């Protein structure tokens, strides 16, 4: 059987790896972006000089040969599902497949702003975007404007900052990423952005990008009528599935490629995974499109099982994610929303330095643990997940809270302070029962 995979991102690669683990099918992985799989999550580190492009490639070139995963560089222009054939933009002969996996990822959103296609205006998604940033930087940038206060926006801002390029950060909301982060955490990030010296403009939107007469950007105009001179505009107002090339095919799409719980599309033997997929019936509490690394990886793994005769439903399990806002690491487990539902209660602890916090959320009546939100403190995924999965009582969680602490050795632990807040709120007198130790964690996880 020949399995063709369009896209060599984390989703496609994970699918390929697991299919190879479980079978001897012929695998061809196609991408127009780069020769080998790289981690786009690390694009920023290349620009900042932390890493070379090679270092962002998780596997050495021999890996693909050894695992008999054929790599094909090319852009798929058309999918002929009737004849099971792919057609390329380049002068490549068409490719026959038996099963097809669409894993084409996302593209940066553009909302029809005047001037959005000028030179030195762009998102940060692909390797080519990075090259464009480098080229613009080589020409000299007096100021960079970042449009959109999400995770990629703040990364882009940090990138320019390390090259001593002044950054203005336009955020539509009245606080950074406050559609996802609870208010305190969002404000913490606001403060942190400003203490790094970025010009953070909240409740400000892009209206127009001004041409300097040579097709390059000269300035932006905001919805408040302000004109800001700049030589680069980063468009980071979210991403959407990269599926334009499917328009004329039989494959059903909405915002993304529509798939069922087995990641199957409406056409048999065609599947979609990762950023480009949209779930018809998402698992409860989950969104139809979740454009993040981890879900792409899980979908790839799940689909590989299905293709290799172990039909498996996609079950992303307990929600988790992580990011880094400049110097503040962020981790989340479970159900943490910007606006907490009425029947939930939160314990929120913040460090004096204003750069660390722990938020633990539980259900008021049942006292069942609901979620963890961490800034500048690391918690252990498996431990939090187990508590959440087993609907553990908040008091049990709190007494064992040290088990979750994942900070390096000798770091100060704040679990007792978190517990004290709960005690104060509830008039209880709980004490930490366990110490942080691998043996304890291991016993807990295998219980």
């Amino acid at each position, binding site marked *: 059987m020949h399995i063709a995979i369009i896209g060599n991102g984390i989703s496609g690669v994970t699918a390929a790896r*697991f299919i190879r683990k479980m079978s001897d099918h012929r695998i061809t992985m196609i991408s127009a972006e780069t020769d080998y799989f790289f981690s786009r999550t690390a694009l920023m580190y290349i620009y900042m000089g932390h890493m070379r492009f090679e270092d962002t490639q998780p596997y050495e070139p021999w890996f693909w*040969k050894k695992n008999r995963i054929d790599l094909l560089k090319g852009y798929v222009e058309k999918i002929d599902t009737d004849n099971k054939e792919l057609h390329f933009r380049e002068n490549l002969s068409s490719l026959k497949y038996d099963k097809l996996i669409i894993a084409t990822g996302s593209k940066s959103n553009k909302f029809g702003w005047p001037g959005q296609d000028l030179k030195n205006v762009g998102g940060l998604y692909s390797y080519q975007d990075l090259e464009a940033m480098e080229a613009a930087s080589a020409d000299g940038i007096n100021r960079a404007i970042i449009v959109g206060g999400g995770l990629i926006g703040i990364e882009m801002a940090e990138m320019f900052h390390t090259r001593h390029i002044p950054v203005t950060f336009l955020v539509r909301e009245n606080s950074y990423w406050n559609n996802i982060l609870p208010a305190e955490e969002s404000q913490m990030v606001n403060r942190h952005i400003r203490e790094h010296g970025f010009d953070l403009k909240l409740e400000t939107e892009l209206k127009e990008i001004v041409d300097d007469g040579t097709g390059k950007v000269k300035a932006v105009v905001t919805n408040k009528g302000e004109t800001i001179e700049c030589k680069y505009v980063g468009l980071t107002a979210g991403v959407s599935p990269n599926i334009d090339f499917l328009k004329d095919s039989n494959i059903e799409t909405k915002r993304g490629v529509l798939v069922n719980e087995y990641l199957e599309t409406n056409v048999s033997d065609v599947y979609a995974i990762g950023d480009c997929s949209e779930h018809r019936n998402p698992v409860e509490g989950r969104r139809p499109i979740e454009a993040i690394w*981890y879900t792409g990886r899980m979908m790839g*793994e799940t689909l590989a099982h299905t293709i290799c005769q172990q039909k498996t439903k996609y079950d992303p399990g307990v929600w988790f994610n*992580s990011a880094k806002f400049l110097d503040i690491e962020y981790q989340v487990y479970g159900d943490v929303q910007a606006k907490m539902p009425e029947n939930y209660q939160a314990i929120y602890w913040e460090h004096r330095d204003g750069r660390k916090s722990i938020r633990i959320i539980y259900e008021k009546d049942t006292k069942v643990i609901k979620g963890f939100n961490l800034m500048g403190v690391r918690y252990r*995924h498996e431990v939090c997940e187990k508590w959440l999965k087993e609907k553990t009582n908040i008091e049990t969680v709190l007494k064992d809270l040290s088990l979750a602490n994942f900070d390096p050795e*000798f770091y100060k632990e704040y679990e007792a302070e978190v517990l004290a807040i709960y005690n104060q709120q509830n008039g209880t007198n709980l004490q930490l029962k366990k110490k942080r130790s691998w043996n304890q964690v291991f016993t807990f996880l295998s219980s």
Partner: protein
Amino acid sequence: MHFLEKIGITLLIIAFTFFTLSLGLGSYQLTEDSLKISNEYHKKEVLSVAEETGLLNQEYDSRPAFITDFKNVLKASTKNLEAKAADGLPEGVNEWDFKMGDWTYKDYTMYTVKHSTTGMVANNPFLFLLLTFILGAIGVIIHSIPKFMGIAGIKNNHIYQSAMTRGLTLSVRSIMLTATIFGVLVYGIFYLKGNFMWSLITLVVMALITYLVFVKENEKEPDHNPPKSASPDALGWLGLVTGIYLIGFYILLYWSPAYITNWMLITDPVSKMLSGNEASQWFVYGFLYTIVMLVMGLRMIGKYRHNQYQILRTISVIFFQTVFAFTLPEILVRLNYPYYDFKNIWPLNYTFFFDWNLNQLIDSGGLGIFMLVWGIVLVIIGVPLITYFFGKRWYCSWVCGCGGLAETLGDPYRQLSDKSLRAWKFERYIIHGVLVFAVVMTALVLYSYFTGSSNVLFLNSDTVRSWYGFLIGSAFAGVVGTGFYPLMGNRTWCRFGCPLAAYLGLVQRFKSRFRITTNGGQCISCGNCSTYCEMGIDVRAYAQKGQNIVRSSCVGCGVCAAVCPRGVLRLENGSADISSRTTELKTIHITEDQIKLLS
């Protein structure tokens, strides 16, 4: 660049200039007083030859000329004494005390040159101490101040954009490495006085290892260099210059100390204060080493000031260097005890079982015996036991001097370690090869010690041990170990060469509570951890699978965990799962039972 960084760099460059130029300052004149030969017969002979040839009291401006002429005098004296000995030795004098072997040349020359030097450096040691060591230290400290300012966090900006730290292209690196290896092997023939067998054997062993790595690799790589090898696109010329400077430094230090006697003059006051003796090349080295670790350690602490683990272990290595490696041995010498570094463990301390060391310890009374027992207990019980509890990090990144230098002076270069599978293969052959060499060499030396016979089978234990000292002890540990920081990363010696690391590593791999755990599914495969692993471990390969990292080479520096932007890695000790530390855990997230139910 921060203005303090500019000031710091400027001071450092000035200090380096003085340091380097000081070697050429002065003139040289051999006098009866400056002839530093303790053996009466040798001294008399050399003096008379020197007088005959006109060297005595003649003033030289050129150091090489002076050294050459003096060496000729030594050679002529050796011949004369040889002839005299043939005519009959003086009453009651041992032949070997009377005759003058060429092994005496190095020390005779070095100390004589040192004392024959007059001029600026010789007259103003304090001034030069200030202009070199102290000014340089101040420079580094000032340069590090900005690391303590601003918001703490991982700041690896521009590392791959700097000509100092970006590393060298594969071709330049290969040329440097090949040149160094051949240089060492050719020099080795002279070192063993024309005995080329050992250079040849070494060459054959290296060819064999290369063959094993390349031919047995099924990784027939496609078009270009393996991406994880440490070669960037552009040449890091500052790194290259630094590497060459360091290599030159070690060559002079080990094999031509007569050229660096001015540094000994500069540090004489310090040495006399500590041990009461004048400074040798080893004192210069120890002093420099300690200062470098102190100031670069400070830089390290600034860089990781948000990270308790890094701060504590940096303080620890600085402490062990200043107290145990530098000060205590000097004080022991002052008190007429043997020079002894309590934390230097065989086989890193490969001279421990040499006859002269054993004799010296045994002859030094209770303390000497204690030192002997301590050294043996550390090897047999200390290393396995502590490594069982904490992993090899207790030594490699908390105690060891080589590790300490790597973690302080070498920190800017940690990203240059090669992460390719091929490098890992080289590593395993070479480091275990060195361990075997160390064990065999020591066994032969001990055999000779107890039986009094140097020849074992076809091997001469004296030759084996001097080849080990030359090849591993000096060339590998020093010239390559430190000289190659800017070329192959800061742990080149620890990773490829150190026999103690190999021993610790075996314990860590097979019987230890230590491992690095990964945080479930949080890894985004970014590669920061692998990039900054100084031991060239592809940490990401484990982390992205949710697998523990149990690798014999991991020195537990904790930097992978520090640089990880997603909080994925944690160094951990625990016995609960000691036998299943390495099992390939969890694939990402689909529960096992679900798969079983459906299939």
